[in-house]
């Protein structure tokens, strides 16, 4: 009898865990149990372990093990207090007052309070420390004020709802002020940086692995974390295995229990194995898209941009490269975002006849010996320069598939080159490209669009200079009816101006042994979550 009761309790607990962590995998791991040591193979070794320097979406699942931010995202585009207990916005939208949790300590014993939060912001604004954060996320921040140990005030130069996104971002994570002062390699981070998270990073072996141990004093999980109190696992080791075939091999041979980053071609191997499960989460931010460079020929002509999109059968290309595992994107914003405009779906593309007619009309009516279209003796060439260190998801292969498709259907010459970083940057600087490819993993799509579409955007590669677009983006940043504002933006850049060819919505995959429970994706961000709610059945 007692046994049965225990089982029932366990089952309800598991149910709870499954519900509250968004996308938590259906599990054969039974009820959560404490203890054990987990090995998890990840694709990317972070360039830096300092959350303030965070720049790789693939590193996000690591950051939240030992660091925490004031807020976190829910799965509906809103925010949940984390190291905060709540926040208030002034009516003019220029002051954010955040109430902080009390009784939180960093793993080095330092107390977490408003002064610690201020020390972090001061550090972020220090010269040469985090220029990108200062120039982008904190561009509208005037100053921060410590009201009392449990209250801090962010004063803005102008209304900017994206400050909340900053407060829930890795760059907004709070590092022990003691570490900020004493760390030898502050910008590189590592075990010497203390955070408040459910795990403590105790060993970093470059090129090999990160080893975390449980923080036994942890007792301040956010409401949507799945459970309260310390983490289940005693230890978790993240091993860096760059090659996907090697990661899958490590999982099937039992060297690790969890892997992330399972390319399409390997997914069948996982699903065919009764011991393993596979789950997927769509990322937030901007979809992986080709941006047409409108500053010179041929894409300064909107007809050529439209023709390129019509020439391309995105579904077939994705099917070939990703074998039906990719989610097609129709807009520059990822389909999981609350700001996504679904009315764009199935409104353009895959019409080779129309593409050819448009190109004929635009003057690209002759063909050369190799079958490419020409105009005044010049070939219809578009150069796409990919930087080798940043190619992921087989985007180089995808580019080759697109290359073959647009050649076959409309005689467009897409020249793809995969080069080193310096060469890629130089090509961009010298304006020696016609197509730029990119996806952004920002949790608030607005932040991505500010960079990509504004006339002065830091990654404005279309060359678009449009005051109407700028004012729409400014309105979206200031708040109000953001769904409507960003809907107008998407209609403008996708439907009306054809500035962008959206391709697919970036996704993350987790494959794991069925003995592992509680794995899931971080709400909104859509990347694998941290190890807080993960357990290993005995």
């Amino acid at each position: 009898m007692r046994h049965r009761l225990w089982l029932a309790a366990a089952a309800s607990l598991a149910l709870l865990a499954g519900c509250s962590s968004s996308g938590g995998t259906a599990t054969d791991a039974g009820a959560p149990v404490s203890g054990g040591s987990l090995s998890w193979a990840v694709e990317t070794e972070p360039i830096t372990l300092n959350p303030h320097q965070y720049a790789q979406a693939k590193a996000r699942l690591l950051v939240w093990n030992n660091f925490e931010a004031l807020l976190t995202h829910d799965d509906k585009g809103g925010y949940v207090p984390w190291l905060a207990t709540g926040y208030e916005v002034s009516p003019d939208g220029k002051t954010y007052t955040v109430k902080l949790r009390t009784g939180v300590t960093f793993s080095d014993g330092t107390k977490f309070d408003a002064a610690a939060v201020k020390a972090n912001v001061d550090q972020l604004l220090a010269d040469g420390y985090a220029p990108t954060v200062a120039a982008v996320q904190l561009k509208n921040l005037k100053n921060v004020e410590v009201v009392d140990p449990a209250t801090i005030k962010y004063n803005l130069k102008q209304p900017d709802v994206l400050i909340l996104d900053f407060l829930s971002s890795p760059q907004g994570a709070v590092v022990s002020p003691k570490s900020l002062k004493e760390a030898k390699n502050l910008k590189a981070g590592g075990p010497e940086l203390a955070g408040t998270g459910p795990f403590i990073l105790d060993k970093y072996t470059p090129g090999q692995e990160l080893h975390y141990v449980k923080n036994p004093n942890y007792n301040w999980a956010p409401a949507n974390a799945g459970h309260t109190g310390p983490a289940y696992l005693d230890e978790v080791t993240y091993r860096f295995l760059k090659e996907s075939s090697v990661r899958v091999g490590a999982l099937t041979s039992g060297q690790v229990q969890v892997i992330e980053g399972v390319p399409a071609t390997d997914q069948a191997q996982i699903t065919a194995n009764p011991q393993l499960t596979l789950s997927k989460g769509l990322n937030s931010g901007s979809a992986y898209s080709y941006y047409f460079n409108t500053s010179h020929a041929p894409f300064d002509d909107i007809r050529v941009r439209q023709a390129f999109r019509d020439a391309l059968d995105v579904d077939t290309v994705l099917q070939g490269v990703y074998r039906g595992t990719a989610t097609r994107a129709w807009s520059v914003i990822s389909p999981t975002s609350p700001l996504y405009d679904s009315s764009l779906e199935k409104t353009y593309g895959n019409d080779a006849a129309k593409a050819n007619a448009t190109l004929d009309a635009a003057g690209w009516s002759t063909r050369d010996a190799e079958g490419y279209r020409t105009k005044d003796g010049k070939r219809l060439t578009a150069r796409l320069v990919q930087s080798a260190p940043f190619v992921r998801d087989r985007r180089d292969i995808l580019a080759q598939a697109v290359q073959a498709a647009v050649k076959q259907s409309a005689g467009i010459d897409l020249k793809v080159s995969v080069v080193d970083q310096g060469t890629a940057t130089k090509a961009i600087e010298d304006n020696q490209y016609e197509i730029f490819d990119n996806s952004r993993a920002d949790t608030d799509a607005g932040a991505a669009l500010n960079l990509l579409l504004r006339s002065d955007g830091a990654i404005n590669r279309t060359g678009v200079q449009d005051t109407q677009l700028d004012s729409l983006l400014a309105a979206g940043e200031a708040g109000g009816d953001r769904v409507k504002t960003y809907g107008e933006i998407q209609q403008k850049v996708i439907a009306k101006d054809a500035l962008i060819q959206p391709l697919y919505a970036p996704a993350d995959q987790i494959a794991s042994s069925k003995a592992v429970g509680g794995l899931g994706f971080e709400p909104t961000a859509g990347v694998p979550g941290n190890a807080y709610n993960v357990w290993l059945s005995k």
Partner: protein
Amino acid sequence: MLRRIGTGLVVLWAAATAAYLALLAAPGDTVDAIIGDGADTPLIRSQIIQEWHLDRPAVVQYLDFLWRALHGDLGRSYLLQRPVSEVIGGQLAPTLTLAFSAGVLGIVLALVLAVTTRRPWARRASSTLELVLVSTPPFLIGIILLSVFSFRLGLFPVSGDQGVAALVLPAVTLALPVAGVLTQVLRDGIDRALDEPFVVTARARGLGERAVLVRHALRHALLPTVTLIGWLFGILLGGAVIIETVFGRPGLGQVTLQAVTSEDMPVVLAVVVFSAFVYVLLNTLADLAYLIIDPRLRRS
């Protein structure tokens, strides 16, 4: 000896300078390389220039680099924000373990093959095998071993640097071509030695064929092998880059590849200087080994 060290230092300086000049000529400047695919605004640029003192003339930066390298300070990695000595030092052990075990394995294999395959048919079989080994791209050997022994049979772990089991396949991959070449050199040496008068004398003294082979001919054949030590080092270190990529092992090769593709100049320079250093060191050792193996050289 002093002259040797002097020459060694010149080689080091030349290597460092050549690499420095080469990187200076690379497309895109240092600021571009540091920004990567991140946000790019004038403010961010000026902060980077300030942080890394990139506003100084190239000559001053070069002299500063030399001066600090002389004091053992190889600078900080642009990309990883850690001292270069730490970046490289941390990756040294896996590469050296791999190179050393592959080197030893290759030498042992070669010795065994050269001595045991004296009969005509064995010789022919062995020669064919050697020809195939030295003609096969090592990454192909690695890929085949990986897919057969790890993926299909599950005999060895697929990856990483976790204990001896994970070292087996990479070490074998790297050792096979080495063994292929060394066996040929050794067999050639043995053949030549067996024609020498001293072998005839030894045989006349009634020494068994095996003893003649091992005690006299092999010893004689080892001498030319020692000159290959520099070559061996090149193979092992260069091969490591590819082997590490195939097997997903951490190591110097991976660091180098990452540093080159992201133009992390301080790391690239350090790798070049380090390789030159090992080269100088090994050649000095090879000269010493000569003296030990062939006492006749001591007099001159």
